[in-house]
């Protein structure tokens, strides 16, 4: 027990230094002005009309994104998870694609389709394209991009949670009700907490999103915070601009905890033999298949295709590869190391939360989720304030800064995956090993880790994707000569050739998707579905 306590305390300390300390230092810095204590940044925040406008914009964007993502993702999830619609697996994979791609690349691809110089201009003429382009660069465009990016989160949550519903309940209801009625009256109420959780996550992700509103010129708090730091070098105003987001995040997480605390479903193993209820679509199959195909073509295929068309020739890819080669290698290396570090840290954090081994487990849980929901630029600024000094230059001047940012922001992901995985491990197994005299380390190696290997692999992949697509942290803290691919694409956007940028985006997508395809193939050979 002593070893467990020491190691988990050490992990908590690491998390505190990596994640909490930059936030504290940054907050303290925001209270300084003209050499003394000052609340000027906060006074301005509360008294200017612009702040309230930004708050309104941020909330509007996050709410619309969460609402529309749920309205599309939930029925789609039911359709793909509970019916006999053809090509369900293909659809799931296609719809999931935008989730693993950096959102701003989706924005670039939509601009290729609907922008003033885009494909729409060629199809419908410049005046029409100008009107559509006007909508793209603003709230409607941001909502479109973020819904197509985050809707898969609702879809995947629905797919996951419908498989946790006790088939006996559905079968019993089928005795006296039609399948659709069973879905509505039995399945939906049971999966509602899980879907609500996913919708909350989408709300928070949209609230903290920087790249898309920045590219599509829609003013929200993360953009304001970034501009206050990068363009005006005003730490006070930058931090103050981040505070409403932090408060909102706290409130939303608090509400989520209050509403769902008694309703959260424990994940349980998927029943063998496909025992869950499957709704036969019958005559409606063709119509629904067509509808899903059109949605897929519009939301996924069209923007991806636009990048391929824009990139055009093989020459563009070769030039792009030459231009971004070093950045690509940096990204791969940092994402791999970051994902490994996050898997290790997330495992111990998840273990702490699951077993409640230390009294501060709830604070650790809330802290990691809060760090995940905060705008990445805020974390980047905090890291700069904390580590930018001669005595810590061995960290500040190296790519370790980027890794620290990854650990600070994304531990919640691997932690939550570990918690979900541990929920499937009967506690009696570890208890039996303890009774037999096995120490904690031995129990982890002998019992817990082997049983968690799939969850840890999933966690690693999720962490890899998030590290690879990170822009906010990397853009602020990358050391000289060590930019990542996401940053390189952003800097190329200033006067870079459109075909080169499109080709670089395609390379980015390939880098993200290829490991997933590899894992999906391996998983498929084991008879499991990739989203499991």
């Amino acid at each position, binding site marked *: 027990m002593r070893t467990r306590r020491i190691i988990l305390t050490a992990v908590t300390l690491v998390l505190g230094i990596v994640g909490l300390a930059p936030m504290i230092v940054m907050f303290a810095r925001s209270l300084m002005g003209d050499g003394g204590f000052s609340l000027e940044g906060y006074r301005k925040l509360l008294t200017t009309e*612009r702040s309230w406008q930004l708050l309104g914009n941020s909330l509007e964007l996050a709410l619309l994104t969460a609402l529309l993502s749920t309205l599309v993702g939930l029925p789609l999830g039911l359709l793909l998870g509970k019916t006999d619609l053809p090509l369900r697996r293909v659809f799931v994979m296609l719809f999931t694609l935008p989730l693993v791609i950096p959102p701003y690349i989706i924005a670039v691809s939509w601009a290729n389709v609907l922008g*003033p110089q885009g494909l729409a201009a060629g199809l419908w003429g*410049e005046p029409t394209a*100008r009107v559509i382009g006007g909508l793209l660069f603003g709230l409607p465009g941001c909502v479109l991009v973020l819904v197509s990016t985050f809707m898969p989160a609702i879809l995947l949550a629905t797919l996951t949670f419908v498989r946790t519903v006790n088939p006996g309940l559905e079968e019993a209801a089928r005795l006296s009700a039609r399948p659709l009625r069973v879905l509505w009256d039995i399945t939906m109420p049971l999966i509602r907490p899980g879907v609500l959780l996913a919708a909350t996550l989408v709300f928070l992700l949209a609230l903290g999103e920087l790249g898309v509103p*920045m*590219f599509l*010129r829609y003013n929200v708090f993360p953009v304001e915070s*970034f*501009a206050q*730091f*990068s*363009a*005006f*070098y005003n730490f006070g105003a930058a931090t103050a601009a981040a505070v409403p987001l932090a408060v909102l995040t706290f409130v939303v997480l608090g509400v989520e905890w209050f509403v769902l605390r008694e309703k959260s479903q424990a994940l349980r193993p998927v029943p063998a033999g496909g025992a869950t209820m499957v709704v036969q679509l019958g005559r409606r199959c063709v119509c629904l298949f067509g509808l899903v195909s059109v949605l897929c073509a519009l939301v996924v295929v069209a923007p991806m295709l636009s990048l391929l068309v824009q990139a055009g020739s093989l020459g563009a890819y070769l030039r792009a590869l030459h231009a971004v080669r070093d950045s690509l290698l940096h990204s791969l*290396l940092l994402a791999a*190391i970051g994902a*490994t*570090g996050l898997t*290790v840290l997330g495992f111990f954090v998840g273990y702490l939360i699951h077993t409640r081994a230390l009294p501060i487990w709830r604070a650790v849980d809330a802290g990691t989720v809060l760090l995940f929901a905060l705008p990445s630029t805020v974390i980047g600024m905090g890291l*700069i304030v904390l580590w*930018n*000094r*001669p005595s810590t*230059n*061995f*960290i*500040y*001047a*190296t*790519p*370790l800064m980027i*890794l620290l940012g990854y650990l600070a922001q994304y531990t919640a992901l691997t932690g939550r995956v570990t918690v979900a995985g541990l929920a499937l491990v009967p506690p009696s197994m570890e208890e039996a090993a303890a009774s037999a005299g096995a120490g904690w*380390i*031995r129990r982890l*190696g*002998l019992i817990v*880790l*082997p049983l968690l290997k799939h969850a840890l692999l999933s966690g690693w992949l999720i962490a890899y994707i998030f590290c690879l697509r990170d822009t906010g942290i990397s*853009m602020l803290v*990358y*050391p*000289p*000569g*060590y*930019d990542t691919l996401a*940053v*390189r694409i*952003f*800097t*190329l*956007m*200033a*006067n*870079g*050739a459109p075909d080169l940028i499109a080709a670089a985006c395609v390379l980015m997508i390939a880098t993200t998707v290829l490991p997933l395809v590899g894992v999906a193939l391996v998983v498929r050979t084991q008879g499991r579905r990739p989203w499991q």
Partner: protein
Amino acid sequence: MAESNALSQWLMSKSIIATVTAATGLVAAVIVGLLGCSSKQQGVVIYVSEDQVFSEPILRDFERDTGIRVMAVYDTEEAKSTGVMNRLLAEKNNPQADVYWANEPIRAEVLKQQGIAATYRSPSAQGIPANFEDQQGYWTGFSARARVLIVNQAIPDKPKSITSYANPASNGRAVIANPLFGTTTAEIAALFILWGDEKAKAFLADMKRNNVKIATSNGESADFVASGQFAFALVDSDDAVNRMKQGKPVELIYPDQGDNEPGCFIVPNAVVLINGGRHPEAGRKLADYLLSRETERKLALSDAAQIPLHEGVDAPAPVRKIETIKTMKTDYALVARKMQEIEPLLKQWVGY
């Protein structure tokens, strides 16, 4: 059987522990490797505000010609090209950069005022007009952009002066980049110095009365004019040349070239050597390289379409030689101070 199970479990636990140990060791080794990537290693560190697509080829040429490795940090459009300058300010007590390539001299002046710039008179700077370098040698200008009017070809009465923004005939027809950022701020500050505060404020008020559209960037202003949504815009010369090369129906007008007019505002790039940089010798070599006639020639021929400041350096049309343009007399140090002074006014004007 029981022994066999125990053995396999023991081996499994050993292999997992070994895997975890190996992974941790690998991560540790790579982290140690990454720690070695600090800017202490041989080379030169440069922070760049000029667009990466234009600046990177020059830096690659420097690497090839000198064998000195360049480690660069580039700015993004989204940081309004002030991100790396602010990074330099943040690193004042812990400098990482040796050289700063500013895309306009105002940022160089700010660094001078903050004690971040070091003095250096490069031999390559000989031949660059004195008004494009700091008198004390804290920065030196090279390859400039001009602030020009981009005008849609379909417009019959083409504006010849920036005062056209205040002309009632331009109501709803003109666009300008957000004056809180970049070269537009610098030009407005220069106008405050040239005209005096009252006249400049009246000009801003007239612009507002004329419903001038505020774009997010010079590039967006140029696109608005190219698509015919607006008649004209004040932009950087490279934005205008870029649209002309794309075949857009626009033309480029150097404003205020008449006898009693102030001339065109010129925005040179600037090289700054950083105080306390870790590679001063390599930094000076890089500064010399950037200020050379050859670099100016390359930047004039590239899509950056910049105006060489050395006399006699080739510049393809429509880039004009500096000696053929009537330029606004500008004290960039005064402009830098004025920019800070008028920032609250501009924020109010924009509604920020």
